[in-house]
């Protein structure tokens, strides 16, 4: 229930026969093949699948960095094309697999998304840094003088500054060692708990999906072949392709 007492839908994002075709050498190539799915508010989702299965492509359709070819995406029950695209992207934030920080300080990166009059003050910058497990002293640091893990966290904090409803994460731990990956995973769980943020994270590692303990979507060749509670899905896969993926036979 929202403050007016009206019931707000539990479903925050929904796809309906969503498809994307890209031009290829001679013909065209289907990268997302008729995906229908409902994402519920405040949950953690992991999109899992072998390399080239369309995980990144799917995320890019959600914030309209790419255009769909068929079907529809609904955010808060409205077609995403009905929103001004810049507003949509503030509501559905995307953190790329390789974090890109703009030249300048960490602080200037954090306030990048903000119009001049709404630039966060030092104390709220510190709060965002703390949220991603960074010291507030880092705010004045040159963005180029950071470790990969720190960059990843700053990029995450920067996405959070725009106060999104949904956070899309594309393999946020792929460049990190196992220890650093674990802390990012904990961070993601905390963000989900503290901010009630809906998180959709791409990973090629089903064990990571198990640890995050949310709902998983298994993608193979652009198709959603199986979905459900991560634990159940990966400990007892129903689909043969999921089983082969878990065994490491699909790369």
């Amino acid at each position: 229930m929202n403050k007016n007492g009206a019931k707000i839908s539990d479903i925050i994002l929904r796809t309906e026969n969503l498809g994307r075709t890209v031009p290829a050498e001679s013909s065209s190539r289907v990268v997302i093949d008729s995906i229908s799915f409902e994402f519920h508010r405040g949950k953690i989702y992991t999109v899992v699948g072998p390399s080239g299965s369309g995980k990144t492509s799917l995320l890019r359709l959600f914030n309209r960095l790419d255009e769909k070819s068929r079907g529809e995406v609904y955010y808060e029950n409205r077609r995403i094309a009905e929103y001004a695209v810049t507003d949509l992207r503030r509501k559905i934030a995307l953190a790329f697999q390789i974090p890109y920080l703009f030249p300048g300080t960490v602080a200037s990166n954090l306030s990048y998304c903000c119009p001049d009059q709404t630039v966060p003050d030092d104390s709220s910058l510190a709060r965002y840094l703390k949220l991603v497990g960074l010291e507030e002293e880092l705010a004045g640091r040159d963005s180029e003088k950071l470790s990969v893990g720190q960059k990843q966290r700053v990029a995450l904090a920067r996405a959070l500054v725009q106060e999104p409803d949904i956070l899309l994460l594309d393999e946020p731990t792929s460049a990190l060692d196992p220890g650093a990956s674990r802390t990012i995973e904990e961070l993601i769980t905390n963000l989900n708990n503290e901010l009630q943020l809906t998180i959709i994270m791409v990973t090629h590692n089903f064990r990571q999906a198990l640890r995050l303990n949310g709902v998983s979507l298994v993608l193979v060749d652009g198709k959603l072949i199986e979905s459900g509670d991560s634990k159940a899905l990966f400990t007892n896969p129903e689909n043969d392709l999921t089983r082969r993926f878990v065994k490491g036979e699909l790369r």
Partner: protein
Amino acid sequence: MIETGFVEVAIAVSLMVLAVILSRWQRVGTEKELIIGTIRSFVQLVAVGYALEFIFDLENIFALLGTLMIMILIGSHTASRRAPGIPRVRMISFLAITAGSTVTLGLMLATGIIQAKAQYFIPLGGMTVGNSMNCSALVMERLHSEVTGNRLAVETALSLGKNWRQAVDTFFRKAVKAGMMSMLNFFKVVGIVTLPGAMTGMILAGAPPLKAVFIQIIVGYMITAAVTVTGIVTAHLTVRQMFTSADQLKI
């Protein structure tokens, strides 16, 4: 006054023969290019000389504008071939060069600084279009390489809710600057390291040096204005072609 009879030309040719012999003797390996270059430049320049003799008899404004239009068409075609990968590249360079040339030539004509006579109009038009063409090509080339080389930076900005114009802002400015660089460098060295060709030519032809200097100044500023207009128009039109109406990068 420099003499320009057959004997004098023959002596100049013999200097080229000397250059060929020297190249051969010192095994520089450029004699073939030198010979071809000598013949080629001779034929091209003489042909242009005859064409100009013919055009200079024209006093008709439509004939002059027609000539200018042909120069712009050739110029935009040449510029567009240097920047493949940009949609509607020929249209972009055509519009940009036309804008740059008409604004400056138009102003010069309107203020009576030059008269609508082939003797002034054609050489000035040629210089304006030539420099604008280089600028347009440079700007398109630079924008294309900056944006394709910084795809992640552009899409990061888009994902943070910036519009397409804001997302390419730094590259836009870099490209326009690159297009104007040769002009800006020219200003730094002119009169100190180099004497511009037009001015040298006038002095050789017997004009008083101060008169030649002022003509050069007028011509220089005029070309700079044309180049600036062309560069900015090129950049605007090029950037627009790189995005869909939903602020999606499409190159």
